[in-house]
């Protein structure tokens, strides 16, 4: 396969992606109507939308990271634990240097703590990328290993309990709402999503990542530095995880080693639902974002039924993942049959 035919195949992929996106929009509208009909008095409140907008960035940012690794033909199962580990290290940093808000340097220390957490994210991502690109461990096994390791380190650092008592200023700023409608966490999510979207569709690296995901051998022979790009992929995923960790920490102004354990599964579901092919090479940010919003609508509406246990959510997410996989499979089969 030469570069030209690769480019042509990317163009055809983008077209099918658009079809998938239109399908997702229909689902979004259907889910919106469903929620609005089932719980009109609470779902359609502005406050409901505001609270949803403040919740979903937590796992939304993580989904972006997992999706990127899936597009590149890999898998990052360590995102949730990178998020927790980086948040815990940032929290330790703040607790050591600014035990209360009285210190005049609180703001500076918070900014430094954010830098520390991003640095931890980068290091974790580099480590993943190194294991996958240089040692050639399959991404799934490598990130299962680092998942356990990051999780374990977080347990060692916290002694298994949760950390709290970080400066109030941090959670106040992170939980505030800009111009009365834009929660800071949502702003972070929007920045991440936009940056990833530009990276994937407008830069050379982005299209090269699609190539690696479609056919790693072909991309190597096309002169692409696979190793470097793979490492970059996991570093970006690590940075997103650290950002998600900062958002998670602000939510309750505390952090612990096993926070959001079930997010891994939820993020894989979002990626697959959003049109990311788990085999690599397909997927775009607008699909992922739509999938996140659909999931949040469902989740919030489910929460409004007091007599339905939270655990039903696991059933619904698991079943949804399998159904989406099957629907995509059938649609692909039909498309192939039509092409013949």
């Amino acid at each position, binding site marked *: 396969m030469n570069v030209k035919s690769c480019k042509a195949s990317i163009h055809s992929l983008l077209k099918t992606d658009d079809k998938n996106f239109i399908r997702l929009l229909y689902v979004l509208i259907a889910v919106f109507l469903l929620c609005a009909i089932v719980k009109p008095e609470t779902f359609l409140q502005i406050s409901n939308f505001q609270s949803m907008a403040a919740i979903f960035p937590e796992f939304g940012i993580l989904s972006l990271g997992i999706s990127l690794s899936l597009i590149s033909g890999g898998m990052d199962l360590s995102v949730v634990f990178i998020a927790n580990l980086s948040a815990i290290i940032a929290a330790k940093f703040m607790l050591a240097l600014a035990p209360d808000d009285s210190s005049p340097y609180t703001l500076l220390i918070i900014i430094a703590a954010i830098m520390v957490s991003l640095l931890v994210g980068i290091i974790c991502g580099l480590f993943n990328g190194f294991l996958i690109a240089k040692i050639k461990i399959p991404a799934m096994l490598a990130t299962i290993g680092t998942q356990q390791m990051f999780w*374990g380190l977080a347990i060692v650092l916290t002694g298994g309990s949760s950390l709290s008592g970080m400066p109030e200023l941090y959670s106040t700023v992170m939980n505030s709402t800009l111009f009365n409608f834009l929660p800071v966490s949502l702003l972070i999510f929007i920045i991440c999503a936009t940056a990833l979207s530009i990276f994937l569709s407008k830069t050379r690296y982005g299209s090269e990542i699609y190539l690696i995901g479609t056919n790693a051998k072909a991309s190597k022979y096309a002169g692409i530095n696979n190793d470097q790009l793979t490492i970059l992929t996991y570093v970006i995923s690590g940075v997103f995880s650290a950002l998600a960790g900062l958002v998670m920490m602000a939510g309750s102004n505390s952090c612990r080693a096993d926070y959001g354990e079930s997010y891994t*599964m939820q993020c894989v579901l979002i990626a697959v639902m959003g049109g990311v092919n788990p085999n690599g090479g397909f997927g775009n940010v607008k699909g992922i974002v739509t999938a996140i919003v659909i999931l949040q609508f469902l989740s919030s509406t489910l929460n409004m039924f007091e007599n339905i246990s939270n655990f039903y959510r696991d*059933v619904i997410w698991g079943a949804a993942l399998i159904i989406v996989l099957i629907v995509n499979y059938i649609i692909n089969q039909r498309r192939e049959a039509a092409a013949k």
Partner: protein
Amino acid sequence: MNVKNLFKRTETYILIALLLFCFLVQACSGQFFTGNNLVDDARALTILAMFALGEMIVMVSGGIDVSFPAIAALSMYLVSTKMYDFHGNIIIFFLAGALLGFIMGALNGFLIGRFHFIPLIVTLGTSSLYTGIMQGVFASHESVLPQTMLDFGNAKLFSVYNPKSKLNSNMPVSFLFLLALIVLVWFLLRHTKLGRGIYAIGGDMNSARRAGFNVFHIQMFIYCFCGALAGFVGVTRACMMLDCDPTNMVGMDMTCIAACVLGGISLSGGSGTITGTLIGVTFLSIMSNSLILIGVSTYWEKVFTGLIIIIGTGISAYQVTRKNSKTVSNALN
């Protein structure tokens, strides 16, 4: 097999590492090679090793299964609560657990075999599904076991008393299950056509298909077997703990994957031995039991599990890369 070949195998190195670790624990605590500690280690190993043998079969076929703790938990919970008033033979309890597990495994097998979805993603999904059914639909909670299961759990093969620490350790009857399973899996993999098929589809699915293996049937068998085993082991676990705690098997999937990887299951599928898996699982189980004996906090357990997965996969990945580059340079010469 000659000595030279022995040193080419990952298992040999893991075995050496395991023995060194045992001697380290003995040197630090003086408590390792005592009868009751060995029995305790065997007891702790039973459940994990049975799970690991199931996972091994899946990984040899090139797949992965992270749903078996959820399958085991749901089967265990249903058997011990719904059959509470049943007073029949203990075998019926085990068969019921295995049957429930079989059905749940069949769903995995169908999705993976029929649609060729990625096994990890499918089993992540079904794991969430089964856990949700257990906690949501059946509102699971810790509960008391039926009398038959309690009796079985209290039965022992023999017990060992340690006069120094004044501790008494019982060898559970379920240890026999592990021995039986080892024989069964050995026979399956070494002496049946099905077993060769499992290795064949792990090596190269397309070649296996062309060689006349029915890939769908083999994959169905693998995941059904693993599911039935998980259900069976779930009930065994409840008997051994004398208590039905639906959450205490969470995380065993990672330990079993680590054990298989450590035991030298090839990353590309198609190879892997029972000996290797057993050595791997023994290592991990003894490590987590003995951290306390050598004065390391149990908080470090996950860090070690992670490190072992990374080092284990790293070594075999490195070997594959080196082999490939050797073949290329030989071809060029």
